[in-house]
């Protein structure tokens, strides 16, 4: 009863398209295609650009997601303590979340363009200009953009998560003589596990969304350091190569599912521990 309404709608709008999408990855044409097994996957893995996109994505996610989570958790814990101007600070960190893509792109352009502000500063100090989005440092630019935008998002989640930890756990821990650090690791982090699991996944999903900004900044064929899975998929979409696209997506989701399964197992253990 609790699940039914959600399940019906979910099946209709998500599950079916999802299944159809995966099915497409085993066919050879969008309309009236025949089943070709793993051909699309073979072709995909043979594509150097796909491998590059995948490795870039792993690299990007590998760097930015842990960094983001660490930073936002740190901030959330700090901002959960008594602090001057606490509300103001909290608001300041969350605001980037609400800025629409259009003006973000404008602002990043102002900073990172060949004629942009960063280069103006470099020029002022007598250094050569850098074409930020076309250099090996471009990934760094992306990480900065990503963290800037999403730190508020995760902070909200962590703050909400922190609130659900009953105060008496801390008191119990304190009574048992646990120090600050021990409290952090044994109470906060443990009880944040479900939130953490959620934040991690959302951070990964949000890391795909950086694509929109990069796409608007650097076009469909950016410097290969920031040529992400999303670029590959987008280009596949525009050349109507849905099969490769879905195959790539399936592979990607498959990888994430492996991670998620691991996490779910951790979570289950946590639950058993709770009970």
């Amino acid at each position, binding site marked *: *009863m609790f699940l039914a309404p959600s399940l019906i709608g979910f*099946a209709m709008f998500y599950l079916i398209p999802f299944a159809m999408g995966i099915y497409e990855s085993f066919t050879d044409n969008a309309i009236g295609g025949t089943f070709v097994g793993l051909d699309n996957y073979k072709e995909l893995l043979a594509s150097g*650009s796909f491998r590059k996109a995948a490795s870039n994505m792993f690299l990007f996610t590998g760097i930015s997601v842990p960094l983001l989570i660490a930073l936002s958790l740190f901030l959330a814990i700090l901002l959960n303590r008594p602090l001057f101007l606490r509300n103001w600070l909290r608001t300041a960190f969350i605001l980037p979340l609400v800025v629409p893509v259009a003006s973000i792109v404008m602002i990043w352009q102002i900073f990172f363009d060949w004629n942009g502000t960063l280069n103006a500063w470099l020029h002022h100090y007598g250094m050569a200009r850098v074409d930020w989005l076309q250099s090996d440092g471009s990934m760094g630019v992306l990480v900065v953009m990503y963290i800037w935008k999403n730190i508020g998002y995760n902070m909200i989640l962590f703050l909400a998560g922190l609130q659900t930890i009953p105060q008496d756990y801390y008191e119990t821990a304190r009574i048992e003589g646990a120090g600050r650090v021990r409290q952090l690791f044994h109470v906060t982090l443990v009880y944040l596990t479900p939130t953490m699991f959620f934040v991690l996944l959302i951070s990964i999903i949000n890391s795909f969304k950086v694509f929109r900004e990069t796409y608007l900044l650097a076009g469909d064929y950016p410097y290969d350091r920031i040529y992400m899975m999303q670029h590959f998929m987008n280009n596949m979409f525009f*050349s109507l190569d849905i099969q490769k696209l879905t195959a790539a997506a399936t592979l990607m989701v498959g990888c994430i599912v492996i991670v998620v399964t691991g996490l779910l197992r951790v979570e289950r253990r946590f639950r058993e521990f709770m009970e």
Partner: protein
Amino acid sequence: MKKITYAILSFTLVFGLVACSNSSNEGNGQQTPSNQTGSSGDIGTNSGVETGTAGTGGTKSPDLDAKATVVFSTFWPDDRFKEAKKKYEALHPNIEIKLQNVETDNSHLEAELEKYTTATNTAMLAGKGPDMLELDLLPTDSYVKHDLLADMGEMMDQDSTFKKEDYFSNILDGARVGKGLYAMPLSFFLMGFTGDEKAIANSGVKVNDKTWTWNDFAQTAKDLAKTDGNTAAFSYPANYMLSEMVKDNYPLFIDKANGKANFESASFSGLMQQVKGMVDDGVIVEGGRNSYFQSTQINSPWDYLVSLRENGENTKLFTKPHAQDTAEGGYFRSYRTIGLNANSKVKNQAWDFIKFMMSEEIETPPESAGIPINKNNFAKQIAELKKEGTVKAYVEGPLQGLEFKVDEAKLGELESFVQGAVHAVAYQSDKIGEIISEESQAYFSGQKSAEAVAKLIQNKVTTILNE
């Protein structure tokens, strides 16, 4: 727990229902809430196709008496299509042509175009979409690759009322993708060079535009520039020149089979330096200054006369250099290219409408943009120009509305150019060319070094090749 079982049951039910309706629902002429025609911003993804009969499958007997709606999607609004629609509907009261287009302005062109492409792609991939599309701005090749467009070459062959000899077969053949004709050009532009024949003759440099390649042309240009220091040989942006030169030596830089690009090489930096040298020596200039050759696009017989005249009295049209490994012959760019949705249920009606738009029924004054694909229409244009005897140039143009005599000999030359155009220039420039011209701009403007630019091009082209 029972409730959960219910939930799962109902879930499977829904899944099954939708899945069934997916597979069985194709033929029964269903109608989705359709866009109102004329409302702003309609994008051509509507599938509101009504057919009165189901028997439109065979290509033999076009059932033109049945009531049908043909949805025709274009990006730009086009008066020519509106006119054709009116005329056709008057002739065939049973058939309604529904024109759809996007309303946009220049500042949002790119974004709107991307939206249009996304929406059309999705609809086409879903087996829906408009019955006819204007392909000028859409990825035709991809559509063809995925069998989304109907082969009009076949329809042409089977349609006894269609007289092939009335149309420029060189253009139709040039527009083919592989064997099939998927994109029907209703008209086309000629791409070529204009050059001052007399000045070139005076310079004593031999010009052979029939066979020249871009490499030959570069050599000719250098020779020409040597003879007169004040006149450049060619007015063309350097970055595009580079891109053309690369195309000329394609195998040198691009190994498609192995997905390798070879831009970080001495030959590419040599090429870049060569082009840059040409700029520095004043062999090629970017607009403005007078030069022996200009790149031009001939939109119509009238435009042919006027644009030649705009560049001087002794100007002649020259064939554009071709890439080294392609056959000789001129270039054209198709305009108002129409495709037919392979999944359309009103293919015959749509084909009939396309045929109508190609026919002599559509009036094409010599000034109208696009040289008509129909030979008779073209002949009419030439005859009309000859009859009028004079043409009046653009009032806003450099000739300020000058009226001058029609040179019949020149018009005769045009015919041979039209007959000789065999290579189609894609309406959208290809990605690799775009990257080369875009990135090399930084080199030609002096902002980046040749090595840096070569590295970027290498980097991006490799990505494309390996996709």
